[in-house]
């Protein structure tokens, strides 16, 4: 079987190989840009200022400026500066990010009130978890009702369609005024960011249930209540589960806004703060942590999904 066959699954070995490549290729590009001076390196890191008065050791200057100053000093018979090609600050090399990643988990907090990185991460996860659970507790039932009964669809959806265009961060100040400064307003932002989408997505999923199943249920004597509980809900459950996995990803994207509201805490605040001081190795380390965590949770959910819905796998 060739690698490129239209709509044919790859063999198991090839699948794993390609999956590894999907991570290896970006990493290789990143490494090439970072370690091969001729690939990009638009700046020069000054090692010796020479006679240039404003140069300092470890200063990053554009290549042209450096060459211009070097020529100028040579023609004036002065010491030329020396330096090495370098990338801009916002593109740290893989090993620097790796080091930051290790340091982040291995270094004890410097203040007693400061949290370990995994504690910040845990606080972020809790915010996501509660925001998402609350949203799901309301959003899924409403979505199912709206998808099943036109009455609820017309009652809820016009307003939700309107509301979902309002950016969740806009409610930050209101959330703080009502819910205080700690986790509650952050959870509220996650909730607002997820809930309205969730209702619409769940309603749509519910509508996609094969109507023949509902008819079959009716001809078997099921009333509205039974149709809802014994046909609609079990019928959409696998799709609902898939929607939930996708929506959970949404919730993560709102985290970065949520954690800037009220007291500063959590992993994304860490990212914002480090970016402000241009410590991009830490920024990328934190991004990688979130990515790995998200991927892990998704794998876990996919695994449980196969357990929960055995009729889907065969």
């Amino acid at each position, binding site marked *: 079987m060739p690698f490129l066959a239209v709509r044919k699954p790859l063999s198991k070995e090839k699948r794993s190989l390609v999956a590894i490549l999907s991570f290896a290729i970006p990493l290789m590009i990143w490494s090439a840009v970072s370690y091969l001076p001729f690939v990009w390196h638009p700046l020069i890191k000054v090692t010796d200022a020479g006679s240039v008065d404003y140069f300092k050791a470890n200063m990053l200057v554009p290549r042209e400026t450096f060459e211009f100053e070097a020529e100028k000093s040579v023609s004036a018979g002065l010491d030329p500066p020396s330096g090495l090609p370098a990338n801009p600050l916002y593109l740290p090399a893989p090993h620097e990010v790796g080091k930051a990643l290790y340091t982040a988990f291995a270094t004890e907090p410097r203040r007693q009130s400061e949290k370990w990185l995994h504690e910040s991460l845990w606080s972020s996860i809790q915010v996501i978890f509660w925001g998402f659970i609350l949203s799901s507790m309301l959003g899924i039932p409403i979505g199912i009702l709206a998808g099943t009964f036109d009455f609820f669809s017309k009652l809820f959806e016009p307003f939700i369609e309107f509301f979902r265009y309002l950016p969740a961060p806009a409610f930050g100040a209101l959330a703080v005024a009502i819910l205080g400064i700690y986790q509650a307003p952050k959870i509220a932002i996650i909730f607002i960011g997820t809930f309205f989408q969730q209702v619409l997505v769940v309603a749509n999923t519910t509508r996609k249930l*094969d109507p*023949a*199943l509902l*008819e*079959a*249920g*009716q*001809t*078997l*004597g*099921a*009333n509205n209540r*039974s149709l809802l509980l*014994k*046909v609609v809900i*079990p*019928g959409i*459950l696998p799709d609902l589960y898939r929607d939930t996995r996708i929506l959970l990803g949404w919730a993560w994207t709102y985290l970065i806004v949520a954690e800037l509201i009220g007291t500063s805490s959590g992993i994304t605040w860490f990212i914002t703060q480090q970016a402000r001081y241009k410590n991009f190795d830490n920024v990328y380390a934190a991004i990688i942590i979130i990515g790995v965590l998200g991927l892990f949770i998704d794998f876990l959910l996919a695994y449980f999904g196969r357990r929960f*819905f*055995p*009729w*889907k796998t*065969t």
Partner: protein
Amino acid sequence: MIRLKLPDYKYQTEKVKERFSRLKRRSITMEVRNLTKKFQGIDGPVTALKNINLKVHKREFVCVIGPSGCGKSTLIRTLAGLEEATSGEILLDDKVVTKPGPERGMVYQEYTLFPWLTVKKNIMFGLLESGATRSNAESEARQWTSLVGLEKFENHYPSQLSGGMKQRVAIARALANQPKILLMDEPFGALDAQTRAKMQVYLMEIWKNIDITILFITHDLNEAVYLADRVVVLKANPGEIQEIIEVPVPQPRNPSQFITPEFLATKHHIETLIHPKGELKEVDNLNLVRMVNVKSDIGDVF
């Protein structure tokens, strides 16, 4: 061309005639009175069914056949209560019905088994809805699975079964509710020829052994003549009853009857009803010119 000399389809042997007269004395399970169904189409209202009148006797097997678009499916869905009649009424044991209910079992072409329930639980669904206890429902469901020959598969999910097996489960599921009439909407349409023949035999067996009246929709002439006591022929635009034919093929049926004169005569008659001579319209003709090179290896297929 040799043309078979066929008897008149209306000719019935004494035995058959006698059976029909007995059949007509039976009570009426389902009666359709002046049923009309109109839809709001894109170009204005469309009459899907017009003045349908039909009486189905107890334990009778009635097939409905007609050209595509004649409203066969609309008819059976209306009978099941899934569509609302525009006018007219449907009586089940002399009582008017308007909504779907378990006393009218329904079997679809697409099986419509609940994919999240095992075979046994699919059959239990209706039983539990009608208020049976779990243990009763379970033991009854077991009986049904064994009746349709699927004991070994009672804990399988529908996706693990073949088409024929799925349809047997669907029939068992509908029958478990002990309906007065079983409405079947082209149930074997999606099956291959062999399985379909087998399923027809199964269905005859079930019909013979269980107290059930069957209304069966099909577009397959052989199937209709083979299974039915009477065949209702519909015509399209609007969907009206063209003729109700008493099938002169003696009961009990078996596959060897497919080439008996009365079978062929009935089939031929229905054929002429559904596709009258000269009906083939211009749009259906291909417009081909010879494009094969005369010198080609095979210049002429004949």
